[in-house]
């Protein structure tokens, strides 16, 4: 479903991703853990082409791009195969909850308004926001904004959903609700999900596979059982110990 080969990304002199190779099957749920500033978010952002990698190949659902020689059109084609849930929600402030979720269907998929609205309401029901459909984001709590973010990401009808620390900006009492929604989505195994998270118990619970990223590479990967109970690498061990 998704395959990444030899992905490189630098910011100036800072070489953040040093050759990432990665693949995941349809419906697979992959948690990405590791110390801050070691490229986890950048990796997700490169898959979505919000950051443009310098080198590497990406393939999602049969659409291939080569970072060194890709045109704007190809980037948009591969972008439409994935969508992103952001740490800071990034909902559109000038649109209501319903309009936020309808936008990808109206402006990108050219769906007619009636059908888009029906589907948007379906997604909003899944995230539990039916009572807020006509509110503007400024009237919502962080947790509610993130629900909009998740519904909007589903509305793209993506093959892969990328979650970039979806609960890191939330007040502690709101975290559980969002994790529950993601957990339900994961159980459907409809879409491939890549989740960067610091919630280790959550990662262990829902992931089919866990990646440990450090120093711009995937240092270790395996089942949650293996990573959390018997990590091979010294650095993985140290990272997990620090969290205890």
């Amino acid at each position, binding site marked *: 479903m998704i395959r990444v080969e030899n992905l490189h990304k630098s910011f100036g002199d800072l070489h953040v991703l040093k050759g990432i190779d990665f693949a995941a099957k349809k419906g697979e749920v992959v948690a990405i853990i590791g110390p801050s500033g070691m490229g986890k978010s950048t990796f997700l952002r490169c898959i*979505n*082409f*919000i950051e443009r990698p310098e080198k590497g190949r990406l393939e999602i659902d049969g659409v291939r791009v080569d970072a060194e020689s890709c045109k704007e059109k190809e980037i*948009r084609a591969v*972008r*439409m195969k*994935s*969508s*992103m849930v*952001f740490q*800071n*929600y*990034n*909902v*559109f*402030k*000038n*649109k*209501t909850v319903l309009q936020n979720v309808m*936008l*990808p269907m109206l*402006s*990108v998929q050219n769906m007619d308004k009636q059908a888009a609205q029906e589907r948007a309401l379906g997604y909003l029901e899944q995230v539990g926001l039916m009572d807020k459909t006509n509110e*503007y*984001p*400024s009237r919502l709590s962080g947790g509610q904004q993130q629900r909009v*973010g998740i519904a*909007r*990401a589903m*509305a*793209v009808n993506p093959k892969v959903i990328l979650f970039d620390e979806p609960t890191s900006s939330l007040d502690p009492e709101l975290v559980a609700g969002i994790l529950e929604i993601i957990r339900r989505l994961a159980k459907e195994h409809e879409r491939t999900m890549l989740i960067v998270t610091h919630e280790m118990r959550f990662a262990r619970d829902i992931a089919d596979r866990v990646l440990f990223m450090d120093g711009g590479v995937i240092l270790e990967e395996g089942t949650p059982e293996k990573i959390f109970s018997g990590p091979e690498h010294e650095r993985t061990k140290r990272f997990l110990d620090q969290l205890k």
Partner: protein
Amino acid sequence: MRFDNEFFVSCFPKLILKVPYTLWLGIIAFLAAFILGLFLEICYTSKNRIVKGLAGIYISYFRSTPYITQLFIFYFGLPQVFDFMKSVTGSAALIITIAMNSSAFIAETIRGGLLSVDRGQKEAGLSIGLSTFAMYKEIILPQAFVAAFPSLGNAFITMIKNTAIGFTIGVVELLSQAKMLGGSSLNFFEAYIAVGIVYWVVLVVIDRLLKMMETKICKYL
């Protein structure tokens, strides 16, 4: 001196007749300034260094010289050098110079509005697959307009007030009308007080209208 009440009251109908003309000058100048300001902003953010440099000089000149100087250069100065400019009427010169003067401010207001849209929302737009055009139409321009609206309103009010300087080049707008009323009766005090009140009322009404529009378009904030 004795305050001539009867004359004072009689000024108002004659002055109010000139209000539409003053508003017309202001509105035409504002529309021209907005388009010019948008164009300037595009030039100023251009990658071409010459285009960017020229826009920078333009903005700097119009922001850092008095408006009346700009008007005199345009209306009295340039026609001595360029023959074709002798045919430019006073009201045209007034509108053009007010528009050019304000466009420099409006360009900066537009830039501020565009910058007010945070990067996160643009990234979200990219992530759902919006084209650049759709991104501007749906997200950036609507929010930039709301952010810029109060400053644009202030620019409009300044422009209405600047039309008064038209009297120095013989454009018969509100202030010139008052000057003539005062001159013909030698009741300058009454005439100027009357015109002051007319300007005040007109601008307070405009200000109210702008505030009402602002609450309407800012409903999502």
